[in-house]
């Protein structure tokens, strides 16, 4: 007899698979937060950028690359892609109102989605996973190795980013440029390029979440639509300003939604999204800048 009985085992399994999807939401949410901090804009194309990168990864794998080779090559391509997008279409509207920039990212969303349909077609494709789908048993609870692997990769990525931002000079420059562009420019930080690098890192995180989610839901041009919505929810929940908030928000959302749709019959899969957003609206009303967001005090 396992500890706590089958109910407890099922509960733990749901928590772990919730953490895995939560890690995926969290990575994309972190990408959104990085761009929000750098350019004060929500990048609605973040999910589609990840989807496009995942198609490139599949193309590399199908032309004979080993999985991890294709994985890191895709991250590099995604980085360059993110930088190029910032330089070509975002920089010209830097001084325009936020709505204008939002419209540009919506244009990117529509365009990248169409391009994927055009190049690779609309049918769903299987995407290989780096991890086996077997389960390991710990004290009577079966954990899928894939779930654990996804959690590991998400945490590693977040950890690496933290180290980069916290302990390198370039990371310091990126943070400075986001926090106070004028002052940074005065002390010699090349703010324009820092913003472009921020887009590059965000694009890498998007690609990462795309490649992690693809084995679970199959790859097609609309794969990231739902993931983007949950990532937005996670980012709001944690506070658009806060990288830690994004990750925590993603994990909380992943686990919470998994438990709700398993145990509350009325909600099931159908009302998952509305419930997610209702919770977030409620959080916003109590704490308008999210759980970890800073309340800004403006000078008049």
């Amino acid at each position, binding site marked *: 007899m396992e500890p706590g009985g089958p109910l407890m085992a099922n509960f733990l399994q749901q928590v772990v698979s919730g953490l895995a999807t939560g890690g995926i939401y969290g990575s994309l949410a972190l990408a959104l937060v990085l761009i929000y901090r750098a350019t004060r804009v929500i990048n609605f194309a973040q999910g589609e950028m990840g989807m496009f990168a995942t198609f490139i990864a599949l193309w590399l794998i199908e032309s004979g690359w080993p999985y991890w080779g294709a994985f890191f090559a895709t991250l590099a391509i995604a980085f360059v892609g993110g930088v190029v997008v910032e330089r070509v*279409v975002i920089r010209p509207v830097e001084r325009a109102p936020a*709505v204008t920039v*939002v419209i540009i990212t919506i244009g990117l969303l*529509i365009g990248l989605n*169409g391009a994927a349909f*055009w190049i690779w077609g609309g049918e769903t494709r299987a995407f290989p996973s780096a991890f086996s789908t077997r389960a390991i048993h710990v004290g009577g609870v079966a954990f899928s190795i894939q779930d654990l692997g996804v959690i590991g990769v998400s945490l590693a990525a977040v950890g690496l980013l933290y180290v980069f931002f916290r302990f390198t000079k370039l990371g310091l420059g990126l943070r400075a440029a986001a926090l106070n562009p004028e002052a940074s420019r005065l002390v010699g930080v090349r703010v324009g390029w820092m913003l472009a690098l921020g887009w590059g890192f965000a694009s890498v995180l998007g690609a990462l979440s795309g490649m992690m989610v693809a084995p679970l839901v199959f790859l097609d041009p609309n794969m990231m639509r739902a993931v983007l*919505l949950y990532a937005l929810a996670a980012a709001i929940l944690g506070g658009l300003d806060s990288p830690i908030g994004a990750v925590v928000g993603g994990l909380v959302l992943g686990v919470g939604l998994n438990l709700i749709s398993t145990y509350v019959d009325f909600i099931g899969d159908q009302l998952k999204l509305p419930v997610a957003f209702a919770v977030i609206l409620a959080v916003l009303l109590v704490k308008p800048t999210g759980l970890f967001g800073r309340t800004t005090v403006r000078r008049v």
Partner: protein
Amino acid sequence: MTRRRAITLGAQAGAFLVAVALLTVLPHWLGDFRASQVAYVGIYFIAIMGLNILTGYTGQISLGHGAFMAIGGYTTAIMVGHHNVRDLWTIPLAGLVAGGAGLLFGVPALRLSGLYLALATFAIAVALPAVLKKFDHFTGGTQGIQLFGRPGFTGKGYENVHVLGQTLTFNNWLYYLTWTVAAVLFLIAWLVLGGRMGRTFRAIRDSEIAATSSGVNLPLYKTLAFGLSAFYAGVAGSLFALATTFVNPDTFPIILSLYLLIGAVISGLGSLWGIAAGALFIQYVPDLASKYVSKAPGAPSVAYAVILIIVVLLLPFGLTGLIRKSARPLTDRLFRGHNQ
């Protein structure tokens, strides 16, 4: 009244009258099918006007105006489809119901600003289709509600319509209906936004703190802008339901909300005089992209996106931004001529 203001007002009144005259005679040259397309342009025109009141004049970004259109559309559909109410009466009612929803949403929205508000409205638009599907007793679920052939539905969707001694095809009827409503709502918006209320809205947009310190009741006016804006969207949604003769949760998809904001930005935020451009963009650019570029799956979207991005890069302040920029030297000259 300064001479400059008189010139502007005269030009605006002239433009309005020319537009009304053009729209009245236009169906003579349009075929039946084109008339229905231009009717949709009228519907987008109304919805963008509403969004502009909120986003352009008051500075509150909404990414969820499709949801208010859906509320208006469903109000009309339920009354005409389930309760046999005459369709014309449901149009103002749909506006009022959506406007009420807007007021209700406007109160909690007071706590949110900028992109947080944009995302909250986006959340509403995202969640609404699933909610409509779940409560199928009122909304018909995924099946939706059929208006075609219902007794309260003018012309039942296929018969000719007799109005003011004229006989119109159903599509021409839709055309005149939407554009008449659009013209009336335009006049109302022009009067409201040109006066004290419009000035208050713009003060809030430019600086909430300065507006408050000048005695503006911030919560009142921000909520009011939400309600008024949602009223317009509800009327547009009602007309949309009449034009499609059918509603289901996919009639008002998320992309509609995004298209409306695209239309508002291309029109130019904070002005009523470019809105036709945004409405035409929503209706025609996707069609043009598939007609003249390529019909391969996905290719029209790529063309649409490229056109959209180029237009926004060239006109970051929309059509009215361009008009203002090109008109300024001229009006400045006229103004100075008067002073000397």
